[in-house]
């Protein structure tokens, strides 16, 4: 039994096997966190993925008869949290579903059922006995329906996907696993799920700064309870929401016959010699969900691809499409690559960079077939320009 506070329990499910969360690579699995509050009207905060329903129900049964549950708060419609509600309602058919207006709309679209809904707005309070739950809509963090639930008496924020991490463990708290691991996973989570919504995250941070929060219970991964850990994750969210990054260079490339690779490695060596923090990622070995994490952390992104039938390689096109959706702001870009006879596809690469929000620092550097020593040296001016732009 995982007790969070007196009469508050974690009753979620652990997804040890998860390796692909709609395209996001999750080497550490994940958890779907569900929380049970025992009071006059027992309340469940969020459910789990459909295939975790029996695990959740078993955990609930260790504590109470599920039939006693009066309210199921659905902070977010996405199926990793609502998927098990249908199954759970077989055990507590009279429970009311508490959600935002968009949550009701979404749950009806997902389940095609007329559940008993109790629709709430920001500031609404639900009396469950000795305790009161307060709701805050947080549209687009990260769906229109997203909502957080605050339990003032226990100073707990149930933040749903915000502050979450895809990390499976028997430990429930950040401090039991280590802050570095939790921050690394939360960074990847933010980059892959929350990055487009900086303005909306800032609004949420503005609301929670006035709340007394001793525990942040997200819907994935570990719970934040040490004051310093909470400070760290909130400050990190602030930084990411403002699209701030570090003076780092990320070189992302793919290659056919090693020519673009030669350019990428030349840039790496030259930048490294200058003492600049620089990372090389080959799209054949790096997963795009890790690439966008490093894009979020780096101020300067260098993108290299050869031409294949007058287009960038599909691996680069995939990254570009992903980036257009994630919209990283306040970053510089530079494009390079090898071609055989036509440079026409590099225009597409450049416009994709701009659509994704990168400010190109100069024209790209494109070399016919295999670069010679002189041509590689032409990248030196890019290195100077990077130093200049990063102010290092």
């Amino acid at each position, binding site marked *: 039994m995982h007790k969070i506070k007196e009469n508050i329990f974690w009753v979620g499910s652990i997804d040890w096997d998860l390796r692909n969360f709609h395209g996001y690579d999750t080497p550490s699995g994940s958890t779907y966190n569900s929380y049970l509050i025992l009071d006059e009207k027992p309340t469940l905060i969020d459910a789990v993925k459909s295939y975790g329903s029996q695990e959740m129900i078993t955990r609930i049964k260790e504590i109470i008869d599920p039939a006693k549950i009066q309210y199921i708060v659905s902070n977010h419609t996405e199926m990793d949290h609502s998927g098990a509600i249908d199954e759970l309602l077989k055990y507590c058919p009279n429970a009311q579903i508490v959600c935002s207006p968009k949550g009701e709309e979404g749950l009806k679209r997902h389940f095609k059922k007329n559940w008993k809904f109790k629709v709430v707005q920001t500031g609404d309070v639900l009396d469950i006995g000795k305790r009161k739950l307060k709701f805050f809509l947080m549209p687009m963090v990260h769906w229109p329906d997203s909502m957080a639930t605050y339990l003032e008496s226990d100073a707990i924020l149930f933040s749903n996907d915000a502050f979450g991490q895809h990390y499976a463990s028997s430990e429930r708290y950040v401090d039991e696993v280590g802050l570095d691991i939790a921050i690394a996973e939360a960074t990847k989570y933010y980059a892959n799920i929350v990055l487009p*919504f900086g303005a909306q995250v800032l609004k949420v941070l503005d609301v929670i700064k006035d709340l007394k929060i001793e525990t942040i219970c997200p819907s994935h991964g570990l719970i934040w309870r040490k004051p310093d850990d909470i400070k760290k994750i909130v400050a990190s969210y602030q930084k990411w929401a403002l699209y701030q990054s570090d003076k780092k260079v990320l070189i992302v490339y793919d290659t056919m016959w090693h020519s673009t690779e030669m350019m990428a490695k030349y840039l790496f060596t030259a930048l490294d010699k200058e003492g600049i923090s620089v990372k090389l990622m080959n799209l054949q070995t790096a997963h795009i969900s890790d690439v966008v994490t490093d894009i979020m952390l780096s101020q300067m992104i260098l993108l290299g691809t050869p031409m294949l039938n007058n287009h960038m390689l599909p691996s680069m096109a995939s990254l570009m499409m992903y980036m257009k959706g994630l919209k990283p702001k306040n970053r510089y870009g530079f494009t390079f690559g090898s071609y055989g006879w036509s440079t026409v596809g590099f225009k597409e690469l450049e416009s994709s960079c701009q659509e994704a929000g990168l400010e190109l620092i100069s024209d790209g550097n494109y070399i016919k077939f295999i670069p010679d020593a002189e041509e590689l040296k032409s990248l030196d001016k890019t290195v100077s320009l990077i130093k200049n732009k990063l102010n290092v």
Partner: protein
Amino acid sequence: MKKYRCTVCGYIYDPAVGDVDNGIPAGTSFDALPDNWVCPDCGVGKNDFEPVD
């Protein structure tokens, strides 16, 4: 000029500000936005907007 709110995500279109990131200069009224303009935050079309009173 009237402001409009996105009924899906709450984004406010303010004609005084425009939507510069997407090529809409400040001073463009909501009515003057092109038909294919979408909410910069959630991507829904003009039909999902309502005037702010």
